[in-house]
């Protein structure tokens, strides 16, 4: 049986910097998970993934990451791996947490 769809955001790494990036509602790549477009249908999720896969001169490795809506109705990670990608490593104040 096909796995039941759960909401997603589209994420990738930036080709030049390697930074973690997300697809927003305008179809731009942004740095914050909470600014990502919340993909609540499988059709929409697959559609934006197809669009992203055509942008490989800008990005590397696009994929759909599990997401949920936070208390402020903004997307948040549904798995700890994405929390680390969104934040940065826990041993140094490096990565996105240092840019905030």
């Amino acid at each position: 049986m096909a796995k039941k769809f759960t909401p997603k955001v589209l994420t990738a790494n930036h080709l030049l910097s390697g930074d973690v990036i997300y697809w927003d509602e305008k179809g731009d790549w942004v740095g914050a998970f909470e600014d990502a477009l919340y993909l609540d249908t499988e059709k929409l999720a697959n559609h934006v993934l197809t669009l992203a896969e055509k942008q490989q001169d800008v990005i590397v490795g696009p994929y759909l990451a599990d997401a949920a809506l936070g208390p402020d109705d903004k997307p948040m990670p549904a798995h700890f791996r994405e929390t680390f990608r969104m934040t940065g490593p826990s041993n140094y104040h490096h990565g996105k947490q240092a840019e905030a």
Partner: protein
Amino acid sequence: MYSYSQFDKDFIAERNKQFRAQVERRIDGSLTEAEFKPLRLMNGLYLQLHAYMLRVAIPYGTLRSAQMRQLAMIAEKFDKGYGHFTTRQNIQFNWPKLRDVPDILDALAEVEMHAIQTSGNCVRNVTSDHFAGAAADEIEDPRPTAELLRQWSTDHPEFAFLGRKFKIAVVGSETDRAVTKAHDIGLRMVRGANGEAGYEVIVGGGLGRTPMVGKIIRDFLPAEDLLPYVESILQVYNRLGRRDNKYKARIKITVHENGLDVIRDEVEKAFVLQRQAFGGYDQELYASIKEAFAPPAFIDAPLDAFYAAQNADASFRSFVDTNLAEHKNPDYAIVTISTKAHGQTPGDATADQMRVMADLAETYGHDELRISHEQNVILPHVHKSHLPEIFARLREAGLATANIGLISDIIACPGMDYCALATARSIPVAQQIATRFEKLKLEHDIGALKIKISGCINACGHHHVGHIGILGLDRAGVENYQITLGGDHTETAAIGERAGPGFAYDEIVPAIERLIHGYLDLRDSPEETFIETYRRLGAAPFKAVLYPAEQIAAE
């Protein structure tokens, strides 16, 4: 130490030029990521969770001071001011930008270094004993063998696209400090019945999802037959090894599925042909490489300052007792510099620390440094009269922690803080264990103990061969840590036994603490180490302290 020939220099320069052009073609869109990925991996460039990661080869863990200084420069100019030493004696930079990587590779080439074959399904960086050339118990320096293998395997056209990666380690001592039995090929330098040089050849060891202790395929291989024999093993693996399933593609599975006797017969058949094909050039090469590894000119000097410092300074005494190993010259010592100050990331060194270690090597250490698979840095040749000054300089740099071989000298892979393959974090678990036992002031009382932590089943943190192994997994979206007991990374290699159900992230350090207190109660004397107690009593009493009856009942 070996220095690049003109051929080596030209080869690296050409490869770097090629890679620079490949990067440009990726950026201008001429190459897709699918086309570029195998090219970047061949040059050590990964894409990890937060950024690119460049893995730089440190052949058999040997560095000169100028090379260490260049690594410091790269860390500062192109990264975030530090580097991470790995269990394959390499260094990884966690934050390079794609456009900078060709410049980094050129900077490495200036000091005869590169990142070739630090990834991909090829023969990887050949590892060795980090005390090579210095250890008192050494039969012969294994580094010329490692260098010969490096030259033979670099860009070897037949073995550039193996079924899976291939790792070789070489030791020249009875004591195995290079985990040879967990390698695709392990080589142990031995002497034949008439004193002639040769190797015991071990094949099919490995960790990962199917851990196996390597098996002896040849108990004595004459030294001059090394390359044809190793090439024969690779040929048989290339032919019989599976390519249908990535997880069954390592030679350990080939040996397991075909049986050692079949593999041995096939290798011996191939060897008959290979031996004729080599024709002696390899031995000329080996002889010239050996000359490059001549021992340094050891000095003679009084040892009064050393003995005086030992009597006067308890912290120096502790450092000497814990971080020094016996050198073949009794007036010398091997100094292991811990990159594991309590609470720090195992294997990380800042650019400043790298420069301090480089300066010490240049001034006092015959210009030699080593990286151990246990993620520490070694000054292999230190006259004992220089130890007080070295200790003082290390202490200023936060590098004088006296914990080598103790509970806080933990191997930890980058885990989910960096690695795209990881299923859980490793580094914070190591940091917390170290700080917890430092607070308890029990470290020296506990004594010799190897804790090894991997953040996924691929086992880069060698957890299977830790006396206590910790494996981080993702269990239903939550980090979970399995404990294995009784592993051994030495010549008596053993795979640890899983203790029982895993522990949550906030339960793993208390579980280790229970285990250690249990050991302290169980040992028959302060001299009996954790692994000795485990071997004497078996797993049962350790499981009992890990999983108390009341806890099991409550669940």
